[in-house]
């Protein structure tokens, strides 16, 4: 077994390299052959999926195998060494499974969705490159490498949002996505630099910014310890670094105020929305915080840090804000995008209140059901020949039953109905958030999350009812999608129902129900904790909180009930709000006016100021001096040229003038 797992681990880099290789091959050679492009791309990620499963299994059975890593030198100088490598530990293994599963299913789905598109092969090439970059990000061994792949997934997202480059909206959206992400990357970069500045004496020729390395101890945890001992880092300065670095996750995972790109990113083809903008890339921010968790803690490793409080509040605010916006959106994909923003907020709340396992668990569950929801919306759009407005839908349950059932499962799951996966992770986060106690308004965040859960249930079922029930309001001829599209939906429905049970111990739950409450380990937390051993040898398992679960359930059902009343029974709350509180409605419909604010600042202030300053300095001042010297030179020359023009009369004239001048001087100022 050990020998086998040796090969298993040492070939792990192939998981990342295969999609890159395939992407390059498709671009260079296979782009004229659709089937070959598809087969190569799907093949690479299928391989990655099975290899990841084997790795996960190996780590499950023999925990001492992780963390396993290998590095190659990428840049060496006497100052420091930058490395690229592959790190396989429990956290990475979980993410590998998520990325490979969703990517595989999305790639199969793509075959159905994009088969008419002239850019079919190009799409597969981008998909492969994205998958490779995302897997590279997941297995990064150090912060530098993560930044490297962080940007690569960003650029793949740019390619894919702008895939239909002829659409002006898509062109604007991909530019916006990349630039907003660059704002986040700026913070990420500055954060890395400041952290490196504080710990630069520590690394001593080892590859810098390594996440974990139990063998040599040259990793983040020990770097922070070292810096704290040497006085280059305090809890306060570490928090400052973490908050600046958090700009990266804020942009990548679409947290306020850098969230504005994600809804616009829906201009890309729907498979991309499912893969990149719902399940994997947008979760990279959450993953970064979890991966580099020591930076967000205090210097002595406690979760009582300001940085984590900021994470929690940013997540909490975003979750709430996005949910209020999702209430009024009519575009099916954009409404889903806002729900993604909101759910990512939940994950950050989980990490921020110290419940890293719950946050990661929500990421895990969310990836499956949200990917499924997006793929369902894609099937609806496909079936309606491009229609995305939910006001033009309705009554699709009979026309496309498989899609409708899957969408219903996803909706139930995300709404937090007990028994489905979303319930377990979301409830765990709300439960921990209720006990959050850092900062003056700490008590608010739990209730806010609970209220957001109510909104979530309402807007998700609003979408479901508007799309699938009632009478069909559009003009197209809806039809169910081909098997290549429905099969991935049905596969994803399984984890959307069941994956939640990994994060809860059935015995503990049953015990609590029968009055014998006890804390028992659950599979997910116990497995994941192997990557958080610096937090303590054993994770804190909690007694199931039946009261909390009960409240969550009531909240979810009341949201569903309200949506049911409004959208199937004609309870006119929505029109009432629209008519009597138009400001509130417009505020939600216009997404809290973030876009207007940003575009206004950019177009009315930043660009005019830049233009004016540039014109003044470069054109007027500097070139004024330059051109001025040449005018002065020419002018001097013009004057001086009369001194040597070779004409006798001129010279005689000058001599005469000089003599006359001298004579006059002597006449008026006689000597003596």
């Amino acid at each position, binding site marked *: 077994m050990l020998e086998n797992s040796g090969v298993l681990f040492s070939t792990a880099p192939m998981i990342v390299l295969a999609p890159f290789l395939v992407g390059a091959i498709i671009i260079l050679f296979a782009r004229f052959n659709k089937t070959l492009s598809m087969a190569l791309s799907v093949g690479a990620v299928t391989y990655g999926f099975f290899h990841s499963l084997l790795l996960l299994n190996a780590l499950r059975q023999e925990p001492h195998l992780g963390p396993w890593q290998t590095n190659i030198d990428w840049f*060496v100088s006497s100052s420091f060494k930058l490395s690229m490598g592959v790190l396989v530990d429990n956290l990475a293994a979980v993410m590998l499974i998520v990325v490979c599963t969703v990517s595989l299913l999305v790639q199969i789905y793509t075959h159905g969705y994009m088969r008419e598109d002239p850019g079919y092969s190009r799409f597969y090439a981008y998909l492969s490159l994205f998958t490779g970059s995302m897997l590279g990000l997941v297995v990064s061994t150090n912060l*530098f490498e993560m930044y490297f792949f962080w*940007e690569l997934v960003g650029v793949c997202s740019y390619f894919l949002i702008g895939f239909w480059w002829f659409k002006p909206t898509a062109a604007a959206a991909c530019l916006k996505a990349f630039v907003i992400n*660059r704002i986040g990357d700026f913070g990420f*970069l500055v954060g890395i630099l400041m952290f490196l500045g504080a710990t630069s004496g520590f690394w001593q020729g080892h590859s810098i910014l390594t996440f974990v390395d139990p063998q040599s101890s040259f990793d983040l945890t020990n770097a922070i310890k070292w810096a704290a001992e040497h006085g280059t880092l305090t809890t306060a300065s570490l928090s400052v670094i973490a908050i600046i670095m958090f700009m990266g996750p804020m942009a990548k995972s679409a947290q306020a105020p850098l969230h504005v790109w994600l809804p616009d990113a829906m201009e890309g083809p729907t498979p991309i929305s499912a893969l990149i903008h719902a399940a994997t890339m947008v979760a990279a921010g959450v993953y970064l915080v979890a991966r580099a968790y020591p930076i967000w803690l205090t210097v002595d490793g406690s979760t009582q840090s300001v940085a984590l409080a900021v994470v929690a509040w940013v997540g909490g605010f975003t979750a709430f804000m996005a949910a209020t916006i999702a209430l009024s959106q009519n575009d099916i994909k954009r409404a889903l995008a806002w729900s993604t923003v909101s759910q990512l907020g939940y994950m950050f709340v989980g990490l921020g209140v110290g419940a890293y396992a719950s946050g990661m668990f929500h990421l895990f569950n969310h990836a499956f059901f949200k990917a499924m929801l997006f793929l369902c919306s894609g099937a609806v759009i496909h079936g309606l020949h491009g229609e995305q407005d939910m006001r033009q839908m309705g009554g699709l349950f009979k026309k496309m039953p498989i899609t409708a059932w899957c969408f219903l499962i996803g909706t139930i799951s995300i709404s937090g109905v007990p028994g489905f996966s979303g319930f377990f992770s979301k409830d765990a986060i709300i439960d921990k958030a209720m006990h959050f106690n850092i900062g003056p308004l700490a008590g608010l965040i739990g209730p806010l999350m609970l209220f957001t859960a109510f909104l979530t249930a309402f807007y998700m079922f609003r979408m479901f009812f508007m799309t699938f029930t009632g009478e069909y309001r559009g003009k197209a001829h809806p039809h169910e999608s081909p098997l290549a599209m429905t099969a991935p939906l049905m596969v994803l429905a399984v984890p959307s129902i069941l994956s939640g049970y990994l994060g809860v111990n059935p015995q503990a739950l049953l015990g609590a129900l029968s009055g014998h409450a006890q804390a028992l380990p659950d599979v997910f937390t116990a497995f994941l904790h192997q990557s958080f051993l610096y937090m303590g040898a054993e994770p804190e398992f909690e007694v199931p909180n039946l009261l909390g679960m009960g409240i969550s359930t009531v909240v979810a059902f009341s949201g569903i009930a309200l949506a049911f009343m409004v959208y199937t029974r004609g309870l006119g709350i929505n029109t009432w709000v629209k008519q009597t509180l138009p400001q509130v409605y417009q505020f939600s419909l216009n997404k809290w006016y973030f876009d207007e604010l940003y575009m206004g600042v950019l177009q009315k202030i930043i660009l005019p100021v830049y233009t004016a300053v540039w014109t003044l300095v*470069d054109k007027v001042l*500097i070139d004024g001096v330059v051109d001025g010297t040449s005018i002065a030179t020419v002018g001097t020359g013009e004057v001086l040229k009369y001194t040597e023009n070779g004409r006798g009369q001129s010279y005689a004239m000058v001599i005469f003038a000089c003599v006359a001048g001298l004579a006059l001087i002597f006449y008026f100022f006689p000597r003596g």
Partner: protein
Amino acid sequence: MNPEHLLTCLLLVPLMGTFIIGLSPEKSARAIAIALGIVMVIVTAMIGSHFNAASLGMQLVEKVTWITSPFPVEYHVGIDGLSFCLVALTTIVTLMAILASNTIGDNRPRLYYSMVMLLTTSILGVFISLDLLQFFILWELELIPMYFLIAIWGGPRRDYAAMKFLIYTFLGGIFMLASLLYLYFQTGQVGAMQQPTFDMLQLAQTSPGLPAQVQLLGCIGFMLAFLIKLPSFPLHTWLPDAHVEAPTPISMILAGLLLKMGSYGLVRICMGFFPDFIAQFGVFIMALGAFNVVWAAIACLVQDDMKRIIAYSSVSHMGFVLMGIASLSAAALSGAIFQMVSHGIISALLFFLVGCVYERCHTRKLSEIGGGLAKQMPFLFYFWMLAALANLGLPALSGFVAEATVFYGSFTSPLATLSQHPDFVKGCLIFACTGVILTAGYMLWLLKRLFYGPEQPKWAGHLTDARPMEIFVASVLAIGTIWLGVYPMALTKNYAGIADKMAADTAAHLTKSLGSNPSDSDM
């Protein structure tokens, strides 16, 4: 062949080419130029095979003394890792520029290609000279072909641009000559060496020992000349005009190679000869570099002429070289040298692609092009995308390596930790980091205004995609940037030792100056 003659050989190819092409028939000029370009690449490859990357010293040195009195005049060439990287860059970019000259060179090809050859002689000569006088002569020689190449084959405002280029560069040359003579006479007074010299190897040994005041006067002229060439704010306004008016292949050489003469001089002469100067004024140079990065990026955002955007982005990217030099960190200096090569490739590619679009649309104004070109130029679109991403510092492409190492290195550098204003230095660096946002903004906005959006009716039907020659040139440069971006050690291994040593030597001067007079805090 005796490997010692290889460098001379390399220098003679374009020099002879100048005359051969000048005397040959108009029709065969292009063929001869391409052949000579290939020969130069082959000779460079031979140099590479004899070059020992592990050695820190000068290699393949050849020295011929002509006269010794009243002052020594010598022919003295040699390369180390730093020069070698730039020589390789020069020969490849020159060949690509010659290949890209197929339309512009139809106008008086004999004169055109002969001027290109003379220009190449000058650039190669600067990179391999080991005699300061010879360095200066070859440096100045570049003016003549460049002036004519802009003034004859340039755009509508070519006279203005060529004259502006000439005046700026000539001014730099005068400053350099003054400092050069000053340095020559000062070295005669150093005890260890009675005989004044132009030998750059000897100067690198002796002039760091000169008093700080002498170093100040000695360095300032060189510094000005190199800052003009680099170019750096506020001496940069010749560059956008020269680029906009210059024909495409000349822009490739101008951005890809000529600017590197300035950065090469900064490392070889300013840093190598005058470490006290760099140590003393490092904070200012750092601030200037950071300002360049941001200022030029801002300038890019407000341009409507795509060539002007690429020209200003050169100013922005050369700011990283200044930062890398000023920081005194081995990694950042290594990054600065990397930036020279990387920017040489990327800017040549970008200017080439600008030329491809200009040739088809006959306008460089983005507002006139109006977008949607991707429909008819898918290949050019992909190359543009790659070049734009390389320029904005996307990982796995070469621009990122330089930016990342300059930032990482500078932030942990002696200047940012030991000097008397560490927070100011760090502030400058964070300011420069905002460049990553601005660069992404202007590059992708440029891409959007060129290629994205619906097809414009006015372009429908009469634009063509890349021709085989264009695909070849763009591919060679694109492969270069991908290769260096994925595996930067391929380049850094040639000069890592030199960067380590130079940074350490200069940093020693910084610590010495801080140690000897801690009260001197006006830095």
